[in-house]
C-alpha cells in the first residue's frame, strides 16, 4: 500500500471520542469534519471540528447509524478518510466495505477482518486456530430455546449468555441455573436485536471471580505489529467497564509477555491492520482465556497512551495513510501507572440508572498528570438518545499508589450539577482496601455498593450552610430590591430567578 497523506477526515461519531479525534486531526494539520444529529447541533464535537454537517434526526438509527447519510457527508465535504470512533458504525463491516467501495479510507481494519472477528463465535474459532486458549463454550450461535438449554446443560451452569454480534456488555446475561435460562434468553435477544440488529446468542462457561485484562495492539499494512501491553478492566457495572488501569496489578512479567504474544498470534493469523484490542479473562490460577477482539479504538485507550507515551489516534491515522509503524516491539515501554475513571451520567445510588439532563454547572480538574477527555461543556444536554458517557478522567503517576492518590485528588476537584454522575462512586472505590491492594475481580462493584454510602456529617453540614446562606442572601436581595415583596413573594416565585441579581449586588 502506498502512503498518501489525508487532507480531511470525517469523524463518524459524537461525544468525547469525536472531540478526541478532532484534536488529533488539528495537531496533524488535517481538517476535521463533524457530523451531528438534530439533537447535537450545540454539542462540543461540532464546535471542535473544522467543518460540521447534519446527518438526521436525534435517534441514532436515523443519524449516526445511517451509512448512507455518513457517506453523503463524507463525499460532499471532500473527506478522504473516515474515523469511526467506537460504538455506532465502528465495528460494522458493511460500513467499512461501503467506505472501501467509495474510495474513502476507513481508519480501522479491512471490512473482511471486521466481519471475521465481529461475529464472536467465528472470532473464537480463529483464536483456537491461532493457538490461543478460549473460555469453554459454544463455537457457533445457538438456534432455538431447546438447543440453547442443551448447550447450557453441556457446558455446565453457571453460564454467560452473549450476543454473537455483541460488545459493550449489551445482550450479556449471567445465567446461574436452568430456571433462569428462558427469561434470560428473551432479555438478551431483545437487547441484542435493539443494539446490533442481530439477536443470535452463544454461551461461555462463567468463570469464578475472573479478572478482565485486555491487550492493545497496533498493526500496519507492511506486516509490522506490536502490542502496547495490557489494561486491567475488572471494575465493571452491568458488564460495562467503569475504571481501567495499566499496568494490571495482577500480571507477572511472564504472563504479560505471554498475553502479548498470544495477541500478536491472532493479529498475524487474521492479517489484522490498525488498532485493536484482545479481551481476556484471567482466572484465579492466572490462566488467560481469550474472550473477543474489538476491531476499533477502545474507550479506555488513554491509559495505554499515558503509560506508553504514544498517541493511538494519530497512529491509527498514520497507519491508514499507509505509513509503516514508527516503532518495533522493543521500543514500546510501559512507564509509570495510569488510571481512568469513566464519568457517566448515571446515579450510582440507584443501580447506575441513567441520569440525563442539562449540565448546569461544571468545573473540571487539572494540574500535573491529569487528563479529562470530555464530550461536554457547561450548559450541555446529556441526551437520552445516546450513551451516557460524559467524560473520561485519566491520571498518570510514577507508581500505582501515587496514581490512586492523584485520582482521589482529581475526583475531589470535579464539580458537576444538573445530572447525577458516577463520581461519588469513584471516591468510594478509590478508598476501598481491596482496590488499593489491587485485588478486585468483576464482582467488585457489587461489593462496594453493598457497603452502603453514608456521607459523613461534615459534608452534609457544609452543604447545609452553603444552601442556607445562599437562601438568606437571596431573600435579602428580594426584600431590599425596589418593588420587592419580601420573603413570601420570593418563596412563591419558587426560588427561581434571583441568582444573577444577587451576584450583581455583591460585585
Amino acid at each position: 500500500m502506498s502512503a498518501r497523506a489525508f487532507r480531511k477526515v470525517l469523524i463518524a461519531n459524537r461525544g468525547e471520542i469525536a472531540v478526541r479525534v478532532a484534536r488529533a486531526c488539528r495537531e496533524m494539520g488535517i481538517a476535521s469534519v463533524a457530523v451531528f444529529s438534530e439533537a447535537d447541533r450545540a454539542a462540543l464535537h461540532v464546535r471542535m471540528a473544522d467543518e460540521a454537517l447534519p446527518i438526521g434526526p436525534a435517534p441514532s438509527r436515523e443519524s449516526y447509524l445511517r451509512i448512507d447519510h455518513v457517506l453523503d457527508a463524507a463525499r460532499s465535504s471532500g473527506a478522504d478518510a473516515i474515523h469511526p470512533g467506537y460504538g455506532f458504525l465502528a465495528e460494522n463491516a458493511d460500513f467499512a466495505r461501503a467506505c472501501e467501495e467509495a474510495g474513502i479510507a476507513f481508519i480501522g481494519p479491512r471490512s473482511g477482518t471486521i466481519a471475521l472477528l465481529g461475529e464472536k463465535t467465528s472470532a473464537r474459532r480463529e483464536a483456537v486456530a491461532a493457538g490461543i486458549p478460549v473460555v469453554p463454550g459454544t463455537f457457533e450461535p445457538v438456534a432455538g430455546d431447546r438447543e440453547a438449554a442443551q448447550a447450557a446443560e453441556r457446558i455446565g451452569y453457571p453460564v454467560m449468555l452473549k450476543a454473537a454480534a455483541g460488545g459493550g456488555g449489551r445482550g450479556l446475561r449471567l445465567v446461574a441455573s436452568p430456571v433462569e435460562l428462558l427469561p434470560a434468553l428473551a432479555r438478551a435477544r431483545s437487547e441484542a436485536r435493539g443494539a446490533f440488529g442481530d439477536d443470535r446468542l452463544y454461551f461461555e462457561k462463567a468463570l469464578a471471580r475472573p479478572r478482565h485484562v485486555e491487550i492493545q495492539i497496533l498493526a500496519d499494512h507492511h506486516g509490522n505489529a506490536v502490542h502496547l501491553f495490557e489494561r486491567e478492566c475488572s471494575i465493571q457495572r452491568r458488564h460495562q467497564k467503569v475504571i481501567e488501569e495499566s499496568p494490571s496489578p495482577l500480571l507477572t512479567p511472564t504472563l504479560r509477555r505471554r498475553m502479548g504474544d498470544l495477541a500478536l498470534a491472532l493479529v498475524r493469523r487474521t492479517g489484522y491492520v490498525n488498532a485493536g484490542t484482545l479481551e481476556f479473562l484471567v482466572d484465579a490460577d492466572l490462566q488467560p482465556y481469550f474472550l473477543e477482539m474489538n476491531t476499533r479504538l477502545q474507550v479506555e485507550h488513554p491509559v495505554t497512551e499515558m503509560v506508553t507515551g504514544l498517541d493511538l489516534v494519530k497512529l491509527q491515522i498514520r497507519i491508514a495513510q499507509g505509513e509503516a509503524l514508527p516503532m518495533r516491539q522493543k521500543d514500546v515501554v510501559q512507564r509509570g501507572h495510569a488510571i481512568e475513571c469513566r464519568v457517566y451520567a448515571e446515579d450510582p445510588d440507584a443501580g447506575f440508572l441513567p441520569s440525563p439532563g442539562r449540565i448546569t454547572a461544571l468545573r473540571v480538574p487539572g494540574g500535573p498528570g491529569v487528563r479529562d477527555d470530555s464530550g461536554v461543556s457547561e450548559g450541555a444536554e446529556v441526551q437520552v438518545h445516546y450513551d451516557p458517557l460524559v467524560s473520561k478522567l485519566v491520571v498518570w503517576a510514577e507508581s500505582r499508589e501515587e496514581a490512586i492518590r492523584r485520582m482521589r485528588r482529581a475526583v475531589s476537584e470535579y464539580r458537576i450539577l444538573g445530572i447525577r454522575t458516577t463520581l461519588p462512586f469513584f471516591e468510594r472505590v478509590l478508598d476501598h482496601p481491596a482496590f488499593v491492594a489491587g485485588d478486585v475481580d468483576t464482582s467488585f462493584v457489587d461489593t462496594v455498593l453493598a457497603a452502603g454510602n453514608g456521607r459523613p456529617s461534615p459534608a452534609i453540614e457544609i452543604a447545609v450552610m452553603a444552601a442556607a446562606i445562599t437562601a438568606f442572601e437571596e431573600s435579602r436581595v428580594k426584600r431590599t430590591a425596589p418593588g420587592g415583596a419580601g420573603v413570601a413573594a420570593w418563596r412563591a416565585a419558587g426560588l427561581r430567578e434571583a441568582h444573577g441579581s444577587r451576584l450583581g449586588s455583591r460585585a
Partner: protein
Amino acid sequence: MTFDATASGRTIRVDVRGGDGRYTVSLDGRPIEVDHVATGRHFASLLVGGKSHDLGVEKRPRGYAVALPGGALTVDLAEAARGLSMPARPTGGPARLTAPMPGRVVRVLEAPGAEVAAGQGLVVIEAMKMENELKSPRAGRLQEMAVREGQAVEAGALLAVVG
C-alpha cells in the same frame, strides 16, 4: 433567618445571621462563623474555621443542590420562622414507582394483584441504549400497573403502585 434543612435524610435546624460575606450559622443551636463568597454563577467558596470549601450551589424547587468533592447533595430548605415546614414524608401507605428517566417500556414483569418483594423487578425501561429493570420500592401487593409494553414514558411518569 431560620430554616429546617434536610439532606441525606438528616434534618438540621439552621439559623443564619450577618451579611456581606460574614455569617453566623447555627446548626441545631451550635453557632459557627462562616466566610462566604460567590465565585461564579453557580459556585461559592466557604471558609469555616480556617478550612476552605469550594462548592457548586444551584437552585432546586425545594432548596439547593450543592456540589462537593466527589458528588452533589440536595438540601431541602423550609423557612421555620414562617411555619412553612416541609410536609412530612408518608412512611406507610402505597408506594409509587416512577420513571427515573424518559424511555420506552419494553417489558412489564408483574400483573396487578401480584405479591411482590422489595427490590423485585416490575418494569423494564429502555433508555440510553440499555434496558433498565425498575424495582419495587417495597414489599406488598401490586395495586396498579400504570404502563403497558411499548409505551413511551416521560421522566417522573407513574409506572406502578405497590401497597
